[in-house]
């Protein structure tokens, strides 16, 4: 029997390279593309087919999702400021949700179970918050490292602590999503491995669990997408408000 982690391995399907950089296309990338294409198609159907003032079912679902994200953006970034970041946050939410969900189809792949991908997004968001902070507040942005109202003697200790906590943000953001996706898929792989190898009279049990855990994984896909985007909003809100 294969290791339950075996299915996380990726092998290039189409070999490509860009200036010496290997950009070969593998299963994870294809799965991501299929998912994104489906979601985009669904969006186009829902929003393109004559948007109605009295919405149909698909439009209602989409509108509820949008209002949900809008509420999140309004709460953590601010009603006026939030408008600028809404598209980014909503795209991020749907991107992560799509990647999380597409991986639940057997034989597919969750690209968000790759620490390299979640790390790239987390670092990207971290750098974006730094850019937003410096462009809005200039040098004054560094005051984010000094919590308001602390005694001056504490400042030399607080600054390194704040720097560490700032750096921990992208790390925790990346690891949380990656770990959740990896763990879920590993559990599913283990249970399904059991179901396949065990005799039928006992094998139905791990198989039943696979079904239950699969349902749970759908919920986790939503929750992790929500957490990732909420934290993104919080980080953006923090650098806009400076504390």
């Amino acid at each position, binding site marked *: 029997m294969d290791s339950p*982690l*075996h299915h*996380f*391995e*990726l092998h*290039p399907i189409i070999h*490509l390279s*860009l200036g010496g*950089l*290997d*950009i*070969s*296309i*593998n299963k*994870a*990338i294809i799965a*991501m*593309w299929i998912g*994104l294409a489906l979601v*985009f198609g669904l*969006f*186009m159907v*829902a*929003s*393109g087919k004559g*948007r*109605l*003032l009295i*919405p149909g079912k698909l*439009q209602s679902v*989409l*509108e509820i999702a*949008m*209002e949900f994200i809008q509420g999140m953006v309004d709460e953590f970034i601010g009603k006026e400021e939030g408008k600028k970041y*809404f*598209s*980014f946050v*909503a*795209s*991020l939410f*749907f*991107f992560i949700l799509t990647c999380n969900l597409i991986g639940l189809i057997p034989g597919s792949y969750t*690209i968000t*179970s*790759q*620490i*390299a*991908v979640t790390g*790239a*997004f987390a670092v*990207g968001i971290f750098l974006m918050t730094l850019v937003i902070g410096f462009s809005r507040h200039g040098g004054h942005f560094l005051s984010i490292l000094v919590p308001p109202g602390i005694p001056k003697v504490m400042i030399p200790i607080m600054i390194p602590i704040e720097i560490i906590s700032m750096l921990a943000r992208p790390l925790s953001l990346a690891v949380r999503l*990656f770990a959740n996706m*990896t763990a879920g898929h590993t559990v599913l792989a283990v249970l399904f491995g059991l179901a396949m190898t065990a005799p039928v009279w006992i094998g139905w049990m791990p198989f039943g669990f696979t079904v239950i855990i699969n349902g749970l994984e759908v919920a986790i896909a939503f929750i992790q997408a929500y957490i990732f985007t909420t934290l993104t909003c919080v980080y953006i809100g923090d650098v806009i408000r400076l504390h």
Partner: protein
Amino acid sequence: MPQFEQFEVFSSLIFWSLLSFGIFFFLLKKFVFPPILDTLEEREKKIREDIESADKLKQEAVAIKESLENELKSAHEKAKTIVQMATSESKKIQEKSLEETQSKVKQMQNDMEREIEVARNKLMSEVRGFTAALTISSTEKFLKKTMDDTDRKKLAEESIEEVLKEMQQG
């Protein structure tokens, strides 16, 4: 764990995921979000406007109801006055016509009485003439003898008086 061991796939994963996200973001921002956000805004605006106009209409309805009630009240009062006036007028007319009829009846009665009086007088004088002649002739026949003029006249007068007395009594 492959995710920490397969460094060779990192570059392609990072490249394609960031690029795909970029394109996904661009497409959503350009084609999907604006119409949906517009619809949401439009709906919110419409609902707000509808509620406002409904409030306005309600206020108008209340005002119209009040004015109508006032009009109805005044119309009722007017009608009441008209009915009262008509009643008193008709009463007056009734009284007047009754009076007129009564006076007419009285007048007719008076006229009748006068006519009766005249007729009676006429009748009486005629009766008197006939009676005189009758009395004379019957007396002459009864006595079968002539009398002088004085006796005749006296006797005639007496007979007449008697007849008249009887007639008046009758």
